[in-house]
C-alpha cells in the first residue's frame, strides 16, 4: 500500500498556499493599469504594431491572472506541466499555420 503513495509525494502533500491580500491588490491594480494602457495605445497610430502591442499586453495580463489569481505559481509541477502543455499545443497551431502563410509566397518548388 505504501509503495503506491510515496512516489507521488509532491502531488499528495499539496499545501494550500495562502496569498496575502497585498499581492492580490497589487496584481489587480497592475491589470487595471494594463487595461488602461491597451485603451490608450489604441488611439495612437502605430501601423501594424497596434496589434502587436495589444496582443503583448493581453498575454502579460493573462499570465498574471494564471500565475497569481489561479495560483499556478504555487502549484505542484504536474499542474504547471498541464498549463504548459496547453501553451505548447497552441504554439504548434500558430507556428504551423503561419508557416503555411509565409511559404505560400515562395511559389512552387
Amino acid at each position, binding site marked *: 500500500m505504501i509503495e503506491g503513495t510515496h512516489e507521488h509525494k509532491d502531488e499528495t502533500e499539496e499545501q494550500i498556499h495562502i496569498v496575502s491580500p497585498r499581492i492580490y491588490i497589487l496584481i489587480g491594480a497592475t491589470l487595471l493599469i494594463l487595461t488602461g494602457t491597451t485603451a490608450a495605445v489604441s488611439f495612437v497610430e502605430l501601423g501594424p504594431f497596434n496589434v502587436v502591442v495589444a496582443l503583448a499586453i493581453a498575454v502579460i495580463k493573462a499570465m498574471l491572472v494564471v500565475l497569481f489569481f489561479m495560483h499556478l505559481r504555487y502549484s505542484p509541477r*504536474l499542474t504547471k506541466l498541464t498549463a504548459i502543455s496547453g501553451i505548447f499545443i497552441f504554439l504548434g497551431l500558430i507556428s504551423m499555420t503561419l508557416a503555411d502563410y509565409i511559404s*505560400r509566397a515562395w511559389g512552387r518548388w
Partner: protein
Amino acid sequence: MSTATIVSLPDQSTARIPKVNFLTKENGLLSWLLTGDHKRIATLYLISITFFFFIGGALAALIRLQLLTPGAELMATDTYDKVFSMHGLIMVFFFLVPSVPATIGNFVIPIMVGAKDLALPKINLLSWYLYVIAGIMMIYTMSVGGVDTGWTFTTPLSTHYLNTHVVSAGLAVFVAGFSSIFTGLNFIVTIHKMRCPGMTWFRLPLFVWSNYAASVLMVLGTPVLAITLVLVVLERTLGIGVFDPAKGGDPLLFQHLFWFYSHPAVYIMILPGFGVISEVVSTFSRKRVFGYTAVAFSSVAIAVFGFFVWAHHMFIMGISNYSALVFSLLTMLVAVPSAIKIYNWAFTLYKGSITFETPMLYALGFMGLFTIGGLTGVFLGSTGTDIHLTETYFVVAHFHFVMVGGMLMSFLSGIHFWWPKWTGRMYPEKISQFAAVVTYIGFNLTFFPQFILGMLGMPRRYASYPPEFQVLNVFSTAGATVLGVGYLLPLLYLTWSLKYGAIAGENPWQATGLEWQIQSPPLTENFAETPIMDHEAYDYDWLERKQASEVASV
C-alpha cells in the same frame, strides 16, 4: 468456427442477481436525473447516444436510397445536401465522439483504477446535461429545416452563401464540445489522482491508457473547435471579417482552425476503441497483451503526432507546396504507432488459446477493417495520389472504414464484452455471433464499392451521378440494408436480455481486470473495500491462483 468457449456461468437454478446494486439502490426518475454515480451516468449516455445513432442511421439510409439511382429522384438536391450534413453532424458529434469514452469509459474506468467514482461526479453529470442540451439544439436545427454545409462548416459557404440554420447547428456543436471536454477532464484527474494502492501507471489496463490519451486530446483540442465555431457564428451574424478576404480575413484560416481540432478528433473517436480491442483480444486469447508498454506509449504517440498532421485535409485547398510536403511527411509518422498496435494484437493472438465469443468476433472484424481504413489513409496522405482521390468517394470509404469499421465495431465489441458486468445478464450468444458476421458482411458490401467509385472519380456530396456508376452504387445500397439489420439485431436482443438473459455472475469471461472481480451489476460504491493491486495487468496466472484459493477456502 470452434465451439470452445471460456464462458463460465454460475449454476442457473440457484444464481440470482445481487439484490443491492447500482441499478436497484435508489428508484424513481429523480434518482437517475440527479445521480452522481458514474455507472448511472454511463447508462444515461448509452441510451442517449443509441437514440442519436438511430437518427443518424436513418439519415444514412436516406442517402443510400437516393444514390440507388443516378438521377435525383427521391429528394431535391438541396434536401440531399441537408440530409448528408445532418448525418455527418449527428454521427460525429453525437455518436462517435462520446461513444466509447462517455459510455463504456464512464462505466469501467473508475472500477479499473480501483476507485469509487470519477474524481468529479457532478461535472460528469453536467457533461451529460450539456450533451442533452446540445442534442435538443441539433434536433431543433433539423426540425426547422436543417443545415447544408456538410459537417465541416466550411467557409465561405457557411458564412456568406447559405440561408440554412448554420448558427443553431454551430452552437449545438459548441455545447457538445464542452460536454466532451468535461468527460476528458474527469478522466485525466481520475487516472492521476484516484488509482488504488499498488495501481502504478504500468499496471493500468490498456483501456485506461488509451482513454487517457483521448482525454488529453479532448481537453487540448476541443476549445479550438469551440472558438472556431463562435467565429463562424460571429462572422455570419456580425460580419467581423476573420474569414472574409474583403475585410482582410482568410477563408483558409477557418480550415486550419477547424482541422486542428477535427483531425485529432478522429483519434478522440478511435483511441478508446483501441483500448476496447486490447482488453478483448487479451481476454479471448488468454494471454497478456504482447508488448504492453509499446501499446501504452503508442496511444500517447498517436495523441501527440495527431496534433501536427491537420493540413493533410487541405492539400488541394491552396496551402503552400512546402507546407503540404511537411504535413504529408508528418502524416506518415502516425502510421507507425497505429501499426504497432495492430502488430501487437496480432502477436497477442499468436499461440493464444483463442475462442470466438461475440466481442472477439467484433474485435477481429475491427483488426481487418481498421487495417484497410488505415492503409488507405496512406494513399490520401501522399500528396500526389491525394490530388486525384480527395473529395471523391474514396475519402468517404476511407473515413467509414476507420470510423464505422473501426470505431463502431469496437464499440459493439465493448458493449457485448461489458454487458454482463453492466446488467448482470448475458446476451444470447448464437444470435449475437450471427449479428457480428452480418455486420461484417454488410459493412464490406456497403463501403468497399465506394473505394472503387472514388478511384473512378465519383465525387462525394452530390445527389446524382453518371449512369455508369450505378452498379457499384446498387451494391453499396444493398450492403447498407444488410448493415442496418446488423445494427438492429443487437438493439433487439440486448433489450431482450435485460429480462431473459442468463445470470452472468462475477466473471463470465475469466478476465483479469478489477471490474471482473466484483459483483455484477456492481455496487454503487464499486468495491466493498478499497482494492490493493498486487499483480500486473492481464496476469492470468494470478487469476488462476486466486480462483484456486477461493475453491480451497470454500
